[in-house]
């Protein structure tokens, strides 16, 4: 949909929302310039020019006809806007048949994706272009949000409930996902991506087994680890130098002596790092909260090793 008014709308539905937006802007703009134009015009035209002429104003106290019309016309206008907004919204809420279903569960501070074939991912959702997609949303701990600005849709993700959202992406691309319900310190770092693939690429990907990120031949382990760390959400909580975040700093971590809650300490060797990824609650670094989720089922052994290798390069 390469409509110049579409502002990068990624679906036909999004373009419809944009059309509504433009209509409201035009109507609002019209009334704004009309009223404020009159305000400014009257203020200038009827400003007091001579100091002793201030009581020669006519004692006009109202006009019933005018009141009637300026109640009637805005009422009609707002009903029209309501109706249009409601129609476009209804199209958004009624899912289309044949949709690919993806389960998305939010927790502080990442999105866990589960596909019907059992495959899982973190923070990256892959879907084919040209077909509707239905997101089945929930949350584990607090309310989160699922916002796809390019598609002009969002839905809250509520613990103990399931909500749904559907989109029909037009063309391949990478689209931003934001969390929009405040959920704690990592709220603004809960960044995820919707990767819309061409039908061929999607079919090929489905046939393979992937988790976080794509596998590339002969890729150095540390480079792979950097990519996994970014995609799996690790860097949302762990800084590498820089301002403090929710989790311990990775810069200079490998080989250092780490003080733990409860008084003991540990050396951050490969085994410590591996345990921290798959069983983060086993040993908590002193002064940090026990909030890290486990990546035991979402990262392959190779990806865990890759992340450890990556951490080793951060001196």
């Amino acid at each position, binding site marked *: 949909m390469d409509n110049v008014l579409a502002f990068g709308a990624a679906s036909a539905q999004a373009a419809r929302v944009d059309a509504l*937006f433009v209509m409201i802007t035009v109507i609002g703009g019209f009334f704004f310039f009309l009223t404020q134009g009159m305000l400014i015009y009257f203020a200038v035209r009827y400003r007091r020019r001579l100091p002793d002429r201030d009581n020669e104003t006519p004692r006009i106290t109202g006009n019933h006809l005018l009141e009637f019309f300026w109640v009637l016309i805005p009422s009609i206008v707002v009903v029209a806007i309501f109706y249009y907004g409601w129609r476009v919204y209804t199209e958004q809420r009624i899912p289309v048949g044949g949709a690919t279903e993806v389960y998305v569960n939010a927790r502080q501070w990442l999105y866990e994706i589960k596909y019907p074939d059992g495959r899982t991912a973190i923070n990256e959702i892959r879907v084919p272009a040209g077909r509707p997609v239905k997101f089945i949303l929930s949350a584990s701990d607090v309310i989160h949000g699922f916002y796809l600005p390019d598609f002009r849709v969002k839905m809250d993700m509520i613990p103990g409930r399931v909500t749904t959202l559907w989109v029909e992406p037009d063309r391949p691309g990478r689209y931003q996902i934001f969390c929009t319900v405040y959920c704690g310190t990592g709220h603004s770092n809960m960044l995820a991506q919707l990767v819309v693939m061409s039908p061929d690429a999607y079919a090929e990907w489905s046939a393979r087994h992937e988790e976080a990120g794509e596998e590339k031949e002969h890729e150095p382990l540390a480079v792979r680890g950097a990519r996994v760390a970014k995609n799996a959400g690790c860097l949302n909580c762990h800084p590498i130098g820089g301002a403090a975040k929710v989790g311990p700093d990775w810069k200079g971590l490998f080989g250092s002596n780490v003080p733990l809650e409860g008084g003991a300490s540990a050396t951050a060797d490969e085994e410590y790092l591996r345990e921290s990824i798959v069983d983060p609650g086993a040993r908590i670094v002193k002064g940090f909260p026990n909030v890290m989720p486990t990546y035991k089922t979402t990262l392959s052994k190779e990806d865990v090793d890759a992340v450890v290798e990556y951490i080793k390069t951060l001196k």
Partner: protein
Amino acid sequence: MAQAAEEPGSGRGYLAESGWRSWAYTMDHKRIGVMYLYTTIAFFFIGGIFALLLRLELLSPQAKYFSDHTYNIFFTLHGSMMIFLFIIPAIPSGLGNFFIPMHIGARDVAFPRINLASYWVFVAGFLVVIASLVSPMDTGWTFYTPYSAKTGAAVATLSFGIFLLGMSSILTGLNFIVTIHKLRAPGMTWHRLPLFIWGMYSTSIIQVVATPVVGVTFLLLAMERLLGVAFFDPAKGGDPVLFQHFFWFYSHPVVYVMILPAMGIISEVIPVFSRKPIFGYKAIAYSSLAIAFLGFLVWGHHMFTSGMSPLANAIFSFLTFFVAVPTAVKVFNWIATLYKGSITFESPMLYALTFIFLFAVGGLTGPFLGALATDVQLHDTYFVVAHFHYTMMGGTVMGFFAGLHYWFPKMTGKMVNEKIARISWALVFVGFNVAFFTMFIAGVKGMPRRYAEYLPKFQVENVISTVGAAILAVGIGMMFWNFLQGLRKGPPAPGNPWRALSLEWQTPSPPDTENFHEIPVVTDWPYAYGTPKGPAA
């Protein structure tokens, strides 16, 4: 009006007695109003400092001056303080307390002791709120569960503080309702009341009906934290979205508590400085009641993405649009008042006209949020932040500033420096628009709110906004400095510097403690400006 324009004063009037006891134990509604003004303005400054800190951090997309956690605490404190400690009480309990009895020709409110109690309950409330800062929270002023029930901060303490602030609000509203019903001077029929009174009356009804619900909401939140009750906890069968319903059942009507008094001030100022009667008195009066009523029916428009059924969403959206109509009616009537007027632009009038202009922007960005499809896109983005700052700050705060400039001579007996007032107005106007207009753009581009860090593509809007905030801060600082200078060494104010017709201006500046030597007998409405030779409509 039956009263002479100026009465022989007794020097300092209600301010004559000094010493802290004359303030702490006062039952004079004027002194109570002044105490509320000082307190709420102090919180305006503190909340404003938090705002400036937020804008400083938002210059850079990543965390720079303080951690994300600290940023999140700051926006929670900014919102909570501005809403509960400034904008809700400032006009009603401050200017309202001072001027409601004077407007209706009474010596005081119906229950002066309850009035004093409301102030001390307010103080208790803010002390408890401050006590909760030992473990500050980052929930946002909306305190959504489950996060607010689980997070390790002093939420229960804060909940009790807000409960007390709500009680203060209820006592004030109750007092005003009885005062307006029972203590009007002879001849002061309902249709001769100043429009400020109609606005305050509608406001008081909302305060009395809505505030108890938020009181219970915070009580339940505190009980969930302290006793583990199950209302909002999904693990025990509770519903976290129920919190949102209860919270917004109050918090939507409360925005009308914020705006209706300010609109009342505008209705007072425009006729005085146009030397014309207000156009459409009854329309403006009854639209205040209509807004108060309709405001209770629309809370769900804050929750369109919370999983409510499409039918519920549709009903809330439909009703939401109707609140726009009485609001628009007021704007049209104010502008019509200017027609064939004889207009001057002293600082109260500058702020009143600014109110209409900025509130129009805020109000006309409402339909984007009331319409379902666009709300789904814009909810929880900076578009909403811009919308409510244009209505609350561009609206209520500008109305508050108009009221402060208008009534400063009456309350203090001094005049402010008009030139400095106009310069600070210009800085406020420019700074405000630069600070907040780009937020609409950031929101349309998709920038979510409550984000300590953001994607680089939103940086330009944020930098511009911070520049605007700095200009705005300078303007506000200059404005209040001007008030201070006026208090200390302003020239003495006459009883009626604006040659206005409502009753408060028929007394000395400052007024005597008993307001009027004799209760006035009212024979005309307070908007009889202009010459009778024009055709009366």
